[in-house]
């Protein structure tokens, strides 16, 4: 059990370092709290954002915390792959630079697995190969499909009722 866990931990840590650096140009990594009692202790996610000192992920900013969580999830997904993924507004607290970088990473991954993202940000939607527009009309949801992000003109509210 110990060896299986450590093997997964090391692979996740390796992936996390790559992903975190791709998004932030800084470094992120995992540390085990107590090597002698792994199953009774925790795991720290450490960060060093560009131009800053190393800091535990619990005391960084709101957007920086989102980056840490995304790097952790994407690393776990890389080690335990699935044919398709869904992300619902994970970019809500990200600025345009970080949300753009996230979209780049997801676009890259979408060669191997299908990635479906729900987003309200134009710079993220623009990087998708296929866009689905949803809007409300007469009390129920309707769907519009676009070949590419450029065609978007979603009716905010069709004539109600």
């Amino acid at each position, binding site marked *: 059990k110990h060896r299986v866990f450590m093997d997964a931990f090391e692979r996740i840590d390796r992936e996390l370092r790559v992903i975190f650096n791709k998004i932030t140009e800084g470094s992120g990594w995992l540390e085990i709290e107590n090597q002698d009692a792994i199953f009774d202790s925790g795991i720290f996610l450490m960060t060093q954002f560009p131009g800053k000192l190393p800091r535990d992920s619990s005391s960084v900013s709101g957007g920086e915390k989102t980056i840490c969580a995304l790097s952790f999830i994407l690393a776990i997904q890389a080690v335990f792959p699935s044919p398709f993924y869904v992300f619902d507004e994970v970019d809500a607290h990200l600025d345009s630079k970080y949300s753009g970088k996230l979209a780049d990473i997801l676009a890259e991954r*979408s060669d191997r697995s299908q990635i479906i*993202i*729900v987003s309200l940000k134009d710079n993220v939607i623009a990087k998708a190969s296929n866009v689905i527009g*949803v809007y*409300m009309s007469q009390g*129920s949801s309707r769907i519009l499909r676009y070949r590419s992000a450029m065609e978007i003109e979603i009716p905010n509210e069709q004539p109600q009722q």
Partner: protein
Amino acid sequence: VYLRKVETRGFKSLGAKLLSTPVEKGFVAITGPNGSGKSNLVDAILFALGENSAKTLRVPNLSALIYDGSVEEQKPSSAKVSLQFDNSDRRIPIDSDSVTLSRELKQNGESIYSLNGKHTQRNTLSDLLENALIASRGLNVVLQGMITRIADLVPDEKRKLIEQMV
């Protein structure tokens, strides 16, 4: 394997009539105004994959999944979702290029599952999905708001998350 189409009828805001949402391979974005039905589309996918928790599907109880958005029309008697997968790589252990899973929930809370049109048991389906690594065992679907909860996990919870995956 990838998702090619989501078909719903009577599921949450997605309407009483049949609604067909084609999905492409690669990187797909869903967008639209607040309250338009984006997260309900995600809930529809989880529902068809076997999700049974009303809390995860954001309803007080499962029968509240049935569309109730219109005054004129009669409330439908059931909510149905079908997912059509492209299976040309045979990752779902079934010998056919296209696999359709569907789940119909009746007003009495009972669910009927079917695979390529034939009734099947819920367990058969979840085993099949587990094999193809599709089952939403937690991290292939990140629901709205979940990212801030993951960001605030304490060290012990991060360890448990990895333990759960092995």
